[in-house]
Structure formats: structure tokens, C-alpha cells
């Protein structure tokens, strides 16, 4: 299993993601600097969270046009798997690999807490193969712009196409299930071919020992085993 993690100036979850991948696969992912236009063949490209380019202009806007992303677009156009987490999700939307956009949280506050996610019935995708539909995952979010937005036609198309992968669901406590106002409680979506996934929650922050949950590890194992 060969993975690559793309690093931009301002990425800050790249090391955590590297350790998570290495913990699961036993193999260290390649770390690719944003200026590298060369991407060796890999089974999956992971775009980590953080604040690429200081969130200047719009979150992910500048990173989406960086040289390394041209290689990621080529990789995806050949059917290669891509996972974007948090700022990585924002970058995938800005690059056009996924539809819609992420706008400011409806509560105008940075949200950093555990969320409960319901695994949705999706199109056939290697990324979710190890996760039964209807199962729940507890994985934390940490973001200021995680409010998924698309027009109603686009949202309907995502629903009909089985492209909604994860939805925020009831925490069984007093906090709202949806932490950011995301349309239709969307926490993560898939591309039409099921090979590209973006999600706001941070699976690399729910790896078991020392973390509140090990569900991120379950999630990443499904992704990594699915593409190998």
C-alpha cells in the first residue's frame, strides 16, 4: 500500500496523518511538498488538515492551484483514490474534484469537539468497503469553515447518486448533532466515481490510545485496505 500526503505551507495535520497511515499499514507514506509537480505512483493521495496558505482568499483556494495539485488531478483523472480531511476537503472542493463548497460555520465560532457520524448508503466505493451502512463513528471536528453548501439541485444529485458518505447524527447529549450548519447534515462526500472523498472530521485524531475514540482508526483502515 503506497500512500502520499501532500503538505502545503500551513498544513498542520500532515504528521498526525503520516503516523496514522504508518500505524495502520506499517509503511510510511511519501510526504510531498506543494511545489513538487512530480508524484510517484501511489494507491491513495491524502490531503491533510490545517490552514494552507493561511486561509488567504478562501480556505483551500490557493492550495488547490499549487503545482502538487496538478499531479493530484492527474492521479484522480486516472481513477486514483484521494482523501481530503478538513482543509484537505476544502482544497478538493476548490480544485473541482468534488462539488459544492464549505462556508463559515453557521454559529460563527470555531468548532472543536467530537461528532457522531452515520455511515450512509453510498455508491460502490473502495474507501468505505470496510464500514457497514448505518454504523456510527465518533470522530472529532476542528474547523471554522465546515458548513457544507451547494444548491438544492446539487444536493439532490448527491443524494440520488449515493455520494453522501457521512452525516452528522445525534450525539445523545445536549449539543446539536450538526456542529456547523452543513446542508443536510453532510460531514463527508464522494465523487461520482466513488474514488475521491472529502470529510470535515479528523480520523487521524481518533486513533485509540490517548484519544477519545478509535473510530478514526477504523475509518482509515477501511480506506487504506480498500485501495490496496
Amino acid at each position, binding site marked *: 500500500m503506497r500512500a502520499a500526503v501532500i503538505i502545503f505551507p500551513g498544513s498542520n495535520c500532515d504528521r498526525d496523518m503520516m503516523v496514522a497511515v504508518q500505524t495502520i499499514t506499517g509503511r510510511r507514506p511519501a510526504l510531498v511538498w506543494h511545489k513538487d509537480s512530480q508524484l510517484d505512483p501511489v494507491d491513495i493521495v491524502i490531503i491533510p488538515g490545517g490552514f494552507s496558505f493561511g486561509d488567504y482568499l*478562501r480556505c483551500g483556494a490557493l492550495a488547490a*492551484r499549487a503545482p502538487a495539485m496538478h499531479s493530484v488531478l492527474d492521479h484522480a483523472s486516472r481513477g486514483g483514490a484521494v482523501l481530503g480531511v478538513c482543509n484537505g476537503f476544502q482544497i478538493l472542493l476548490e480544485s473541482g474534484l468534488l462539488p459544492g*463548497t464549505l462556508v463559515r460555520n453557521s454559529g460563527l465560532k470555531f468548532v472543536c469537539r467530537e461528532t457522531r457520524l452515520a455511515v450512509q448508503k453510498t455508491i460502490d466505493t473502495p474507501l468505505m468497503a470496510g464500514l457497514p451502512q448505518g454504523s456510527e463513528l465518533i470522530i472529532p471536528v476542528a474547523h471554522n469553515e465546515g458548513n457544507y*453548501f451547494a*444548491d438544492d439541485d446539487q444536493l439532490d444529485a448527491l443524494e440520488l447518486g449515493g455520494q453522501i458518505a457521512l452525516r452528522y447524527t445525534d450525539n445523545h447529549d445536549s449539543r446539536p448533532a450538526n456542529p456547523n450548519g452543513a446542508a443536510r447534515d453532510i460531514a463527508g462526500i464522494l465523487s461520482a466515481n466513488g474514488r475521491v472523498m472529502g470529510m470535515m472530521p479528523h480520523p487521524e485524531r481518533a486513533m485509540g490510545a490517548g484519544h477519545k475514540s478509535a473510530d478514526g482508526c477504523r475509518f482509515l483502515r477501511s480506506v487504506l485496505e480498500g485501495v490496496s
Partner: protein
Amino acid sequence: MQVIINITLKAGVLDPQGRAVENALAGLGFTDAVDVRIGKQITLDIDSEDAARAEQRAARMCESLLANTVIEDYTIEVVAPS
């Protein structure tokens, strides 16, 4: 040519920041201010004497980077040097 680009949220896109500012204005007694929307302005110089060409270049910049046309509209104003 100086180019002034105004980027605004499309109608129908919720602007929580605008709403918070509207509430703050109301708190200051400006209850007549409604539909507060916050956008951004980008100014740049294009090395061209041709206003039409400058506008065309700016439009391409908006489409490829400066605006997110999923949620944003843009207007372009070309200012001839005085």
C-alpha cells in the same frame, strides 16, 4: 490599467457574518439597516492600455481563482489612468 474587482455572496447564500453585523448595528440603534452582506474587494494593476483586454483578463482571473462561483458573484471595473 487599474482594475477593481468586487466579490459578493450570491443571493440565497446565507451570510452569517453579515447577519451578526446586522444584529450589532441594530444594537447601536441602526434598526433601519437590513440585509447586511459582506463581500471583498480586490484591486490590481494590469499592464495594458486596452481597457477591454484588461477586463477580459480580470474576468479570467475571477473564474480561475479570485471568485468561487458556487457561492460568489463578481463585478469588474476598469479605471483608466488619469
